[in-house]
């Protein structure tokens, strides 16, 4: 049974989830206006997963994920302005406008991307864990992937090495039931992703990713395990993305009813709001303060992303190689 949250913890978690939702709604608008281009993968529906995991992390821990990364970055406390300005391809973006929606990083917040090659982030995550172990900094790496990515061979190469060497990595599978237009039933023989580490003795569990406290509790178990030197852990979160795969996807491969069913009965933010008011007795007025603050934060990010200038043409040829270190 997940423990009760304090009012303060609850308000922070609610704020973080709401920030992601409102941020993504605005990103969707900006995309419609032509201010954001290319691929843009929204995280709406999956907010409880990253917010729950982030709540148990320590400052030295590292996070890496794929291209559906806006939520992860906001959960890592990266500045919404810098994220939105990257989406609009401006110099104020986290990658100076040179990375785009799928490729953003923050050394300061230990967020290691933002990777556009499905599955590639997983062995990289094992490498971040390798570095934690090597440096003995007691850090854990959270390496996230989708249900689709879970069928990539390098995921299993990574499981093997992580188990073999006892690396402190938590593999997170955000099972939103689709990889683009392919449902898990059509992509995966035996889609128990959490059990796929069994052959290597990696413990795994399936968790309702729409229920924040369950995510938190599972993330605590998994990170405790990895941090204590017992090696990797797999968490599969049952979740759902409300929007298409990317902005250009009308999502014809699933029914409206299927989506509505989740929105009405399983929405992670609605559910948590009810928990706040009914179980924790938090007042509507307190929640309203957060709603307003989030709205303001997102509007500021939008404004910044529109007014930040495009990168200087001279930026085309910078950041290809790092400055030479002194050789001697």
């Amino acid at each position, binding site marked *: 049974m997940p423990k009760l949250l304090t009012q303060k913890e609850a308000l922070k978690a609610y704020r973080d989830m709401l920030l992601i939702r409102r941020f993504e709604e605005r990103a969707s608008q900006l995309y419609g206006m032509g201010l954001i281009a290319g691929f843009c993968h929204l995280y709406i529906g999956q907010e409880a997963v990253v917010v729950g995991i982030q709540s148990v992390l320590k400052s030295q821990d590292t996070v890496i994920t794929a291209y559906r990364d806006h939520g992860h970055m906001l959960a890592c406390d990266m500045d919404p302005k810098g994220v939105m300005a990257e989406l609009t391809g401006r110099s104020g973006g986290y990658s100076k406008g040179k990375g785009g929606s799928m490729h953003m990083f923050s050394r300061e917040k230990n967020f290691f991307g933002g990777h556009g090659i499905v599955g590639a982030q997983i062995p990289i995550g094992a490498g*971040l864990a390798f570095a934690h172990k090597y440096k003995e900094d007691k850090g854990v790496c959270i390496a996230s992937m989708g249900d689709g990515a879970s069928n990539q061979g390098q995921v299993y190469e990574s499981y093997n090495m992580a188990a073999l060497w006892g690396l402190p990595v938590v593999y997170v599978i955000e099972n939103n039931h689709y990889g683009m237009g392919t449902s898990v039933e059509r992509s995966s023989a035996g889609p128990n992703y959490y059990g796929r580490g069994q052959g290597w003795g990696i413990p795994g569990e399936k968790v309702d990713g729409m229920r924040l406290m369950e995510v938190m509790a599972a993330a605590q178990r998994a990170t405790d395990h990895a941090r204590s030197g017992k090696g990797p852990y797999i968490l599969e979160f049952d979740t759902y993305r409300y929007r298409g795969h990317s902005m250009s996807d009308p999502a014809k491969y699933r029914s409206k009813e299927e989506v509505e069913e989740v929105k009405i009965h399983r929405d992670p933010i609605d559910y948590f709001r009810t928990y706040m008011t009914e179980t924790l007795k938090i007042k509507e007025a307190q929640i309203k303060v957060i709603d307003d603050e989030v709205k303001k934060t997102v509007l500021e990010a939008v404004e910044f992303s529109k007014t930040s200038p495009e990168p200087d043409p001279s930026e085309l040829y910078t950041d290809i190689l790092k400055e030479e270190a002194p050789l001697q």
Partner: protein
Amino acid sequence: MTANQREDIPMTDSSLVTLTVREALRDGMAEEMIRDESVFLMGEEVAEYNGAYKVSQGLLDQFGAKRVVDTPITEHGFAGLGVGAAFGGLRPIVEFMTFNFSMQAIDQIINSAAKTLYMSGGQMGCPIVFRGPNGAASRVGAQHSHCYASWYAHCPGLKVISPYSAGDAKALLKAAIRDPNPVVFLENELLYGRSFDDVSQDPDYVLPIGKALIRREGKDVTLTAFSIMVGKALEAADRLAEEGIEAEVIDLRTLRPLDVETIVESVMKTNRIVSIEESWPFAGIGSEMAALMMEHAFDYLDAPVLRVTGADVPMPYAANLEHLALPQVESIVEAAKAVCYRS
């Protein structure tokens, strides 16, 4: 000119010794591992077996299993793991048993290691060395014989080194390990056992990446080569000298960034150039050389740029066919004479 009569090693360095390329590479890694705790070596058979080609001989004993790591046979996975370790502040040396197997991992090398600095607006350096033998060994057929120099040299965000002598191998590997960027370091199996008298024992001695070396001076034709082909080019130059043609042999040493200046200066003097490599001709290093000479030395050329390359076929196994598929001294001599209009 013997290998140690070189302008870039200070003649005050009395510590030059004769070593095989294999020993020089090992010493280079060992010195850097002593110098920097964050340097570690990983790959298949690098530790307990002392390296598939014994390049890491003794390193496990010297540094222990934390820093000399035997991996499973999992190139895609351990290349990616190396990239992550580099993002995480370490300096991995990742050995491929041969670069042919790096094709399993090329996605991580290019999409993750080479591009991330740019995609992160300069935040995310990836100080990693991918090293191992490259190109043809002997009689190992099509899947174990290819030279990947042009594949990797194509990619911004990488540095690509391919040394010839033992001294260069050591000093450039040390530079690669210290470099804050991803470096592809292409060795050659047939060179591993060859000795050179140019190895510095000064642990602070490194060579700059991106600088070619004129291994033989000449006024009539420029021959460019890298790795084992440098030896072939030098032999060809000896033969050409007998026929009164003085060839200048440039050891490219680094393929990216290529030392265009040294090549152009040479061509301004010789007015003729032959590019030599053992890989396939199409879109190869020689193609690039031809284009660069058009762009930078067109007015100095007295003959078309010629390429001596491997044959445009998968490497055959049969001894006679393998010989035919690889550049030989005769083909270099012929090409040099052709551009001198002496055939």
